[in-house]
């Protein structure tokens, strides 16, 4: 995957307040062209709010936001044509047939076709790419959950966006559908050179799909890096278990290999049942979130939701 220097997404000091509740306190993030990044965080951490601000669907309280060089709050149709959006759940166009819908939505992007990026995506090629060729003439409402999700992605990319937002794309998918979905996202990133920002609760998914993970908690990005880098930040508290003289021991140590060597040097062969568990992303995540929420309470999800409903002019366009 090629990662260019071009900044696609630039956020500085982003704040979002619903009434007196501050959901986003000071979010700073930057995404480069071709990157696949993941926004990870507990429920109510403000992932969806952040995404909606970036998508231009919600007006922020403060801060500087640039998406493809434009403030999404004032993004016109030209900007819209370069951004793909896949929300948590779509139920629209249930009466349309799958191919018919993709062909129709393609019309909107034709005028934005350039020599580099031919728009829109041919409906049949697109159906093949997302694996819905067999469902081409089915009505949208007759699709299964996994098929519907793939259609949502197809709709999100029909205009060949330079930047694609996926909000919890695999929530509610069975393992097979989830795997197929992962393959699709990987192909998009590799073959289409699309910059992808996704949110998820699934740590394995984050680790598998993305180059970079950003953890949002307590209204701030509390960690930003590859899965390995994040693990290192908790400085390798690996777990070592062993038995000696019929007694078992557990110890968390920073350098587990060295520790084991010392253990053998001291006790030789009388050490049994040695087990070393490396820090997993899950451990890292839990410890990071615990640290950050120890300082400040996270906003409960429904409080943010309820406040958003009656906040006048809280959304854009």
């Amino acid at each position, binding site marked *: 995957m090629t990662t260019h220097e071009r900044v696609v997404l630039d956020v500085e000091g982003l704040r979002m307040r619903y009434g007196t509740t501050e959901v986003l306190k000071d979010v700073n993030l930057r995404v480069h062209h071709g990157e696949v990044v993941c926004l990870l965080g507990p429920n109510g951490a403000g992932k969806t709010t952040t995404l909606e601000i970036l998508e231009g669907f919600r007006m922020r309280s403060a801060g500087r936001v640039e998406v493809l060089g434009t403030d999404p709050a004032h993004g016109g149709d030209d900007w819209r044509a370069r951004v793909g959006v896949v929300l948590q759940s779509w139920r*629209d166009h249930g009466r349309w047939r799958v191919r018919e819908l993709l062909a*129709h939505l393609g019309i909107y992007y034709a005028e934005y076709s350039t020599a580099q990026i031919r728009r829109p995506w041919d409906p049949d090629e697109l159906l093949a790419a997302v694996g819905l060729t067999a469902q081409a003439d089915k009505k949208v409402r007759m699709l299964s959950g996994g098929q519907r999700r793939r259609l949502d992605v197809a709709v999100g990319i029909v205009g060949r966006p330079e930047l694609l937002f996926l909000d919890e794309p695999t929530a509610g998918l069975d393992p097979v559908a989830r795997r197929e979905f992962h393959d699709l996202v990987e192909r998009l990133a590799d073959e289409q050179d699309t910059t992808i920002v996704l949110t998820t609760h699934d740590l394995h998914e984050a680790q598998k799909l993305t180059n970079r993970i950003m953890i949002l908690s307590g209204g701030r990005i509390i960690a930003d890096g590859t899965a390995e880098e994040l693990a290192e930040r908790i400085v390798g508290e690996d777990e070592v278990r062993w038995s000696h003289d019929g007694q078992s021991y557990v110890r968390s140590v920073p350098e587990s290999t060295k520790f084991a060597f010392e253990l053998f040097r001291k006790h030789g062969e009388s050490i049994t049942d040695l087990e070393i568990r490396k820090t997993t992303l899950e451990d890292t995540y839990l410890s990071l979130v615990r640290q950050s929420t120890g300082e400040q309470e996270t906003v409960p999800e429904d409080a943010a939701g309820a406040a958003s*409903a009656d906040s006048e002019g809280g959304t854009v366009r």
Partner: protein
Amino acid sequence: MNKTVMRAGWSRGVTELRQSFTNGGDLFNHFFWPVLMLVVLFLMRDVSFGDGEFELGTLVLPGILGMNAAMAMVTMSQLLTADREDGTLLRAKATPHGTPAYLVGKIISVSVGVVVDLAIFLIPALFIIPGLRVGSSEAWLTLGWVLVLGLVATLPIGAVLGSLFSSTRSQGLLTLPIMAMIGISGIFYPVTSMPEWVQGLAQVFPVYWLGLGMRSALLPDSAVIVEIGDAWRHLETVGVLSVWAVVGLVLAPIVLRRMARRESGSTMAERREKALQRVG
């Protein structure tokens, strides 16, 4: 207007029309009212009005046409609310030129749908009811402009109503005032036989004027005596319908923009949650 808006809007309108006429539930709706009205007409065909100069059925037929045209307002309102609920509008917002194209599509599908519904009613009705000016080209011309002006007057108001209701469930509230409006509008019985204050009220709403316009097109001139002031009042018809059209066309973009601005994934999810709670 942008070329994409027209192309995509046209494609939307045509697709939605086709869906609407190839789907069991929708076909039932397209035929239910016209058939019911035909039954009413059939039962009324021999009832005479006043001193027996006119059959009530003859007077009522054009009124029904006018009423059905005015119902485009309700259709528009319901479709808009439903599309907001299921995310069709949000999808339009996420698409370049999506919202105006959506509206163009809706206007095409609703107005052509209304014209088809009118034909479903009118063609068989002409066999039941004698004494209409079906041979006169001037009659059809009048019918044409009354219909077009009527749609321009009622569709934007329908869109405004659709933006005000937050769920398909609350749309039900609209039914009662609409029924009342039809009841006093002189569609089923000449308005001149009603108390004067009712006549005054009826003349505020577009249904009365659409009915009057249709009667002026299809009834022989001698039937004018059952109308207010013994006149077809074309000038007033154009005036009142135009006022509704202007009010609607000014309000609709404002209200629609306001509604679209508030749409986002979370507002949609929230609405669905509420709907589910009510069911559960």
